[in-house]
């Protein structure tokens, strides 16, 4: 899997985005901590001002004498063609487990759009999810497939957003369901991209 901040001097240093071998585009102005704990699926965009807190991961148990150091645990894993817009913070949630605060690895699926100025702390976000601007996804909430979170929503801690629903409000309530054609159409050459659909065209347009 790709390392986010791959060799800096691959291209001319003028461009805003560093493109990795798998097609991830990472802004030079993104703040990435603990990059060894972050997995990007390829063709994923991390925009300027994004905070990725990969350093917040479960501390590996100290290796016993003579054993090899365990490989790094993953703190954040992001799928393919996912877009994390500007000034969004992605912070793995933590919880009390057997009397100790531990961080839970966070999983974000494919073709997820996360709007600007959001705070993402959920346990998992499935594929084809649309998160609007200025949202707060509180710790340990679970966002299921093909759901839509309207702009300026606060998803309360521990809430499950079921597949195919539209949620909004502070705190978030289930307001409705996405249409049967959610994510269909668009995404083709020269067509506009649609929410919940294939985001490859959008990723391509980011320069």
């Amino acid at each position: 899997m790709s390392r986010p901040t791959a060799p800096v001097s691959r291209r001319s240093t003028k461009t805003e985005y560093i493109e990795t071998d798998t097609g991830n585009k990472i802004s030079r102005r993104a703040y990435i901590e603990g990059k060894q704990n972050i997995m990007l699926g390829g063709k994923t965009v991390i925009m300027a001002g994004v905070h990725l807190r990969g350093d917040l991961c479960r501390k590996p148990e100290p290796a016993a004498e003579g054993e090899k150091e365990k490989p790094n645990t993953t703190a954040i894993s992001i799928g393919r063609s996912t877009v994390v817009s500007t000034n969004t913070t992605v912070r793995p949630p933590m919880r009390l487990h057997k009397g100790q605060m531990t961080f839970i690895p966070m999983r974000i699926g494919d073709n997820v759009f996360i709007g600007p100025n959001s705070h993402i702390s959920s346990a998992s976000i499935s594929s084809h999810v649309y998160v609007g601007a200025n949202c707060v996804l509180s710790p340990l909430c679970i966002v299921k497939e093909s759901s839509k979170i309207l702009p300026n929503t606060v998803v309360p801690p521990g809430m499950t957003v079921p597949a195919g629903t539209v949620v909004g409000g502070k705190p978030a309530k289930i307001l409705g369901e996405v249409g049967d054609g959610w994510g269909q159409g668009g995404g083709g050459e020269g067509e506009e991209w649609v929410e919940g659909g294939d985001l490859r065209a959008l990723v391509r347009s980011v320069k």
Partner: protein
Amino acid sequence: MTTSFPSTHYACPCSDLTSAPPPPSSKRASIQPTSFQVNEEQAFNPHSPRADYTLYPLDHLLFCDECDEIRCPRCWTEEVLYWYCPHCLFEVPSSAVKGDGNRCSRSCYDCPSCTSPLAVTQISQRDEALLRPSDAAGGNETYVLQCHYCDWSTLEINVHFNKPTKITEQLVKQRKSRTSGSKENVSSEKAAITHDDAFANLTNFYEDQLNETVEPQNAYPGSPYSSPANLARIMNIYGGLSHNALKKTREKPQPMREARGHAEGQTSFSANDSDTGIIQRLQSFGWDATTTSEQCLSAPVNNDTRFTDDLWPSATRLRTRRAKRCKSCRHIIARQEPKVGSMRYKIRLLAMNYIPRLSIRPLNPTVTTTNPAFHLRPDMPEQEKLQPHQTKQYVLTIRNPLFETVKITLATPTTTPGKVASRVTILCPSFTVGPAGEVWDEALSASTQSASSDGGRKAAMASLTGSSESSDRQPEAGKIWEKTRNSTSVVVEIIPGSLRPPPSIVPKTEEELADAELKEDDDVLEVPVYVRAEWETEVKPGETVQGRKEVGGMAGEKVRKEVGYWVALGIGRIAG
């Protein structure tokens, strides 16, 4: 109304077919002359109050391929595939829903004051634990339901649990003990029975009444004959007096009576109690301590609750997943896999795969317009307002999802309906759009701009002339602007009208002034466009032709098909 522009909404043509509005009485018509017709003679008015119930984004519409019609929530019927709890995502069998109501019976509870989910939290009672010997401390853990959003917890209603599982049972037990306890406190014959008890008593009473008056279903329970009704008839014919008749002759049938007394569920108003207490509480705690109507309606237990301190956690309401059926031909047009959380479809006939799709954008955009849903940066420029009386040109693109070349005819009223009349001209209202092909076909044509079909050649020509990129190229009347393999673009000229009415010499009456006053969203410029698509398709062998709009029907023969529908194109807001 839409908040982001440009937008396209499609009107389902069902409203003039299925539910024609009842002819309004002359009185009503004079008050509300907003006519709502979706027929070809009169233009569809997107500002009409009923238009909101007809306009849908394209991804919400389905298509019935038997009737060849667009289908919207008003012209499909839904049937429940399964019930599920949105919190624990477990499927609930329909028998359980019928028996226990539409609430999750697991440990899923919502906060009564803010509706977010409650979590079981362990609380440590330190002061007590310190007094105890340390080895006994294991047994006295207590749990509460806590809302992590607004910090409400069941401690506020003084409820805690001994174990973190079987919350529902514990909660019901506590509720029961509490309500029965309160009854003992009043301890008179006129004890205020709770709503639920009264309801249960009433149900019992009326069931008894019904049983007494109505003939029992099975008068001969011991017989091996399977149909009791038939058996009763046979016995009537051959057996002389039946069991029922004997019973009837013995006692006169009494008319059903109403409940009397508490045991039968009667409740009477008593003026003596509790009102003064409520008033005192209201005086001391104020308005903020009272419940809102949403809080009261969150669960039946909270229906009569007056103060937020008495709110009871409400069990999470179940949700359904539904299949859709065409109302007229009863065919299923959308059906998901019957599995919770799965978004895969078994059948899905989307309108966007059957009807030409429209999209509009400015001809010379000042800012690059993308889908406004995809704001990538917070500092996106504000949506520009349209200046009145300034001609602007837009490119209207029609995309064809069908595998046949489609002939498109566009029609629009010259001035938009509504308070603000804007002038609209479609420079080329009738043209053809090439067929959609396979994915690899698309990929080929996208890279080389050449396709073998007739539409493709034209497209290639158009793209060649277009690609010479004469920036001074002017849109001409009667000519299409751009053409690709399965899409055609034409230019639309729009002159936004003025929000202020034109000055007049004659002083206006009050009525006219009130009429001219703009209401919310009257400044939104929406252009109704009637799209008619015609194409020819081959009848597949073995397929029966039923549609009204088809003529002929032999296998292998060409059949003409057409669809027509209104589209409301949201352009923007007009500057005042």
